[in-house]
């Protein structure tokens, strides 16, 4: 791995982030969506903005509406020419200033995201790592112990579970384990009336709430990792070094752990890094099902309330995390596996 490769790879990272940010800025403008107008029109329809319903709006009230729109546009800088807005936007993004939420106006988007992020990262991250471990072991054993009756009965249904979207499993789990038998709370991140702090009571309550969302991800993901691992193990088993190691009379345990598993796990590890980069989108709908206070629920509510700046901010954070995880993979993989040589990107 040369200095040139690293530099080029980092340059590509910034290029991707810049492209994504520009697209994120341009798309709404191309579609000529006016977030302020839409939001106010909706408020007006509910009779909040100017105290009358849209159907009864008279000429005077309409001009009042236009004036309100103008005032808000000025406040959000939407009355400036496009290129000025763009330069300001890129500058803001570079300083991680994602603007303000239209719906909860004084709240900044970054603050809302930072509040939700730990919930998502912790629960879905832990669930992903757990299913990676369990799934890899299951997949490897399904090839290694081909004749085990337990694996032959248990394996295929677990693999098939991977075909089901997480959140649908979640819907079923809520009904069974929270509604029918109240083992777990139905929704939320912690008990109602508790204030998030660092105390055993809070941690206990938060873990209790996290089990079901995590379980629905683990159940569905084990099969995904198992399938990949099984495929890798079949390939590894045929390699010459496996036959040679077997001929040397190494123990079965050593063959399995040090020779087969160790070689098959590398592509899995790459995949794990990619999946961890996708952590935020993976859990969006699971969080919605459980009304979990993470990024997914934030996104869901932003979509529901037409809060475009929050949607844009979350999209940007997701792109950033995906780009960052591919960058890390591309930089770490050549160190892990000397067979990988990146001469030309």
């Amino acid at each position: 791995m040369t200095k040139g490769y690293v530099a080029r790879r980092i340059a590509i990272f910034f290029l991707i982030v810049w492209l994504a940010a520009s697209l994120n800025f341009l798309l709404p403008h191309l579609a000529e969506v006016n977030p302020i107008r839409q939001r106010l029109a909706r408020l007006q329809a509910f009779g909040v903005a100017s105290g009358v319903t849209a159907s009864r709006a008279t000429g005077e009230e309409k001009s009042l509406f236009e004036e309100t729109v103008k005032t808000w546009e000025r406040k959000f800088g939407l009355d400036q020419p496009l290129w000025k807005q763009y330069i300001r936007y890129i500058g803001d993004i570079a300083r991680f200033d994602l603007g303000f939420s239209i719906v909860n106006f004084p709240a900044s988007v970054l603050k809302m995201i930072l509040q939700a992020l730990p919930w998502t990262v912790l629960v879905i991250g832990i669930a992903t790592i757990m299913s990676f471990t369990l799934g890899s072991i299951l997949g490897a054993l399904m090839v290694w112990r081909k004749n085990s009756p337990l694996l032959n009965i248990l394996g295929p249904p677990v693999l098939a579970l991977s075909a089901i979207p997480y959140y649908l499993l979640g819907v079923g789990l809520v009904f069974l384990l929270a509604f029918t038998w109240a083992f777990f709370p139905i929704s939320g991140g912690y008990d109602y009336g508790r204030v998030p702090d660092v105390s055993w009571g809070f941690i206990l309550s938060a873990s209790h709430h996290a089990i079901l969302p995590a379980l629905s991800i683990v159940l569905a993901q084990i099969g995904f990792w198992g399938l990949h691992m099984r495929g890798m193990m079949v390939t590894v088993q045929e390699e010459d070094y496996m036959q040679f190691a077997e001929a040397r009379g190494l123990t079965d345990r050593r063959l399995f752990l040090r020779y087969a598993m160790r070689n098959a796990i590398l592509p899995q590890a790459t995949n794990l890094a990619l999946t961890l980069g996708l952590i935020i989108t993976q859990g969006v709908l699971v969080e919605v099902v459980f009304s979990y206070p993470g990024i997914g629920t934030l996104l869901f509510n932003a979509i529901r309330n037409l809060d475009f700046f929050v949607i844009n901010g979350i999209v940007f954070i997701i792109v950033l995390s995906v780009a960052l995880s591919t960058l890390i993979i591309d930089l770490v993989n050549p160190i892990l596996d000397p067979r990988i040589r990146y001469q030309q990107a």
Partner: protein
Amino acid sequence: MNATLQWVSHNKLLTAGLVIVTILALISIIGPHMIDEEGTKIGYAMPDQPPGREYLLGTDTVGRQLLPTIISGMGLTLRVGIIAGALGLAIGVVLAFISGFYGGLPDAIIRGAADTLLTVPVLLLLVVVASTLTSALTVNQVALLLAGITWMGATRIIRSQVLSMRERAYLEVARASGANGLQIIFLELMPNLLPYIAVSFVGAVAQAILGSIGIEALGLGPQNENTLGMTIYWSLYHSSQVRGLWWWWAPPVIVIILLFIGLFLMSAGLDRIANPRLRRAG
């Protein structure tokens, strides 16, 4: 008959998957003729009725009858999957041939685009596009949108096959006997690629359906059409699971789970035909 039985016993996974998917498809084709479309309209029936003699699968909070809603929803969801899957496959195969056959710059561009798009979460793209549109999407627009992001799988699988087949002896023979490019593609390559194309198609359909249900469950789907995903969205919106209205959320969830398991079995079965090495995995 004997040959059929033998084929079935050799392809148990594929057969099981085909049976499940065919049954679901038949229900969604025949079903609409047996039900009253009016029942899918809001306010048609008494709200929140459990399944019973009058309403076979009950009704939801806004008075839709659920049986007709789900049957027509199955048709819509399958339509999204098939349109998007077929289009995505077509795009993917054409790009794979250009990429694998001509190499060079077109190959670099197509491969780069596929690899980059593969790392972008599908749901995210859909959220961005759907939330910037001023009007709600229709079923066909959702399908078109999904076709644009389901082609990469096909491109990767077929490209690598085309690359390995390009240098085989039978192509040399065909070339030497004066076959032109199109003849080579359709008479020599396509028949050998069929299992891979079938795997790609099933994969693209599953991905398209997954994507469509995903944005629908987020509330960004076609608001006025009762696809399965929209039924799930409304049932979540009205918190049906915690109100004990199991007949609202359970049927669409079960149908979708069956559909995904059917597609999964089909692709696992086809995979075994395409990659003989997997058969040894047991």
